[in-house]
């Protein structure tokens, strides 16, 4: 079973890979809309990738209003 810290790190690593950013350029508290300049649709694409990685289904409503990686990781963690 992953710890929350591990989940957060995996979320950050995947986001870095998905958006082709330099390693270590994202932090848990980062607002992904602001930091990545992405819109809600691009966020949904990132979520699909996270779902595949963690092998879970994350309903759209679960991520409603979430805008930072740490909260997102918490939502994922609760479904692992």
């Amino acid at each position: 079973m992953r710890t929350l810290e591990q989940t957060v790190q995996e979320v950050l690593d995947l986001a870095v890979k998905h958006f082709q950013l330099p390693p270590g350029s994202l932090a848990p508290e980062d607002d992904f809309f602001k930091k990545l300049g992405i819109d809600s649709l691009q966020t949904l694409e990132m979520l699909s990738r996270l779902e595949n990685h963690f092998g879970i289904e994350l309903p759209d409503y679960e991520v409603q209003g979430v805008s930072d990686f740490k909260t997102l990781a918490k939502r994922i963690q609760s479904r692992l």
Partner: protein
Amino acid sequence: MLDLSKYQSIGATLKDALDHFAGELCLFEADREREKERLTYREFKERALPVAKALQDAGFSAGDRASIIMTNQSKWLISAYAIFFAGGVLVPLDYKLTPDEHWQLLKHSSATVLITEYPIWRQLSVSVRRSAANVQTVLVTEAPPNSGLSSAQRWEEFRGAGEPAFVARTRKDTACIVYSSGTGGRPKGCMMTHENYLEQCVALTSIYPFWPGVRYLSILPTNHAIDFMVGFFGPFTCGAAVVHLRTLRPEYVREAFPKYKITYVSLVPLVLKNLQKGLQARFDALPTGKRRIFNTLVAINKAVTKNHARLGISRVLLKQVHEAFGGELRTIIVGGAFTEPQTLQFFYDLGIPVANGYGLTEAGTAITVNDLKPFRADTVGKPLPGMEVRILNPDGDGIGEVAIRGKTVMAGYLNDPELTAETIVDGWLMTGDLGKFDGHGHLQLSGRKKNMIVTEEGKNIYPEDIESVFEGLPVKEFCIFAANYIWPKQTMTGEELVLVIHLETGQPLSDDLRREINTRNQRLLNYKRIHGIVLLEEDFPRTASLKIRRNVLAEQLGKLDRSSAVLPL
């Protein structure tokens, strides 16, 4: 299509539609690759009437208000029909609002019934604002077994035995209260009459018809005026089917087109642009030879569709593109915000017409729409049948405020006669948008007169509604503006909000203050956030009752140079 001139209400129309088209398919609901529902009109009726009966057994009667806060799904439409059948007024709310905002609007609308989904109820039930509203009956869909529902009931078990009594309404009665904005300050609850919907439905379907076999992909939230009309009432009056997706991830939306042979879909400009980007990337990745052939086919398509759309020819010429959309797509309806002409042209050149138009909730959805005769990417089309559109006080270029009159215009704002009187003057709805007519009767929009923005996601944001988030900011005074309201620009895209601050004497714009502003800004949903700060070194002009005189302040700020006045966050 049913002859809507014979009907008095949405409920009466739907009641006949369910019998008239009993054997036709009316609803599909899919969750990722799983199909959860496939209902005929007969089955829809069988699901809805016991809900109507249970509502009546619970004391719900003519004119009572019931709110729906749900994502797009079959139970949304089933519940809505049950409410109309029982003579109720529907209050559809945006499920993306916060729980506090939901309770605020539930209170404002005086809704006594709330129908919602379990994940939403989980948040609503713990909100401190809950006690302020007068909701007596709460129905929750899809609650897991053993979940504590507090005082709510399971929607699935809310069934009345026996036949419910149909409650007739007249055309002038309120059918829905639709909030166009106002979650932070002054709620704008548009009172839409049955006549508004009946007339709008006739006008829209005269240009974009539905019939049995047509499948409409419902992506825009159904509380939105567009989806309520073209994703519920319109198709149901014609025996067409609606497809709901519980997951709006792009890959599942893409799959839905061929899987359900979609005929129409409505999108906001943001999604349309994203679709364009994806397609363009695929075209660019074609090997040189294939790309050349493709470009030639697009050029031929452009030539043959110059005067009007020719779907049959386009589907043959650009077969692969059309097959990716299921091969049956006739038109993409785009609304909620302004769409850039080049995006519209991109799709039209591929033989996929985009019905762009212009509308306001207050006007009963659409005011103008492109009739594709011929296609025009540079305008928002011509007024719909029955809609009068005037340009008030035009300047030398013919640009003035757009005012409209017609049977689809709302009755007024709920509990706000003052705002109603400001908005509807001598029967004309003042839109606050600026535009002009060209020589062919097409409306061209060129900016806004009002202090608000519309995002590409189709969200109307009024600065007053988000100011509460900045309450208590350690500055002398502050105010939020649409930047284009201060510095008028002839555009309807790329609109942004700015925070205007008057600091205390000697107070610097410190890093701490910036951090505070950023933290508060992040509490807002991303599309509601401010994009810059403007410093003003003098007191804000105020009325005798100390309200900020926003128009005077905007004039004052307008004298500053925009590029240097707006500081980054």
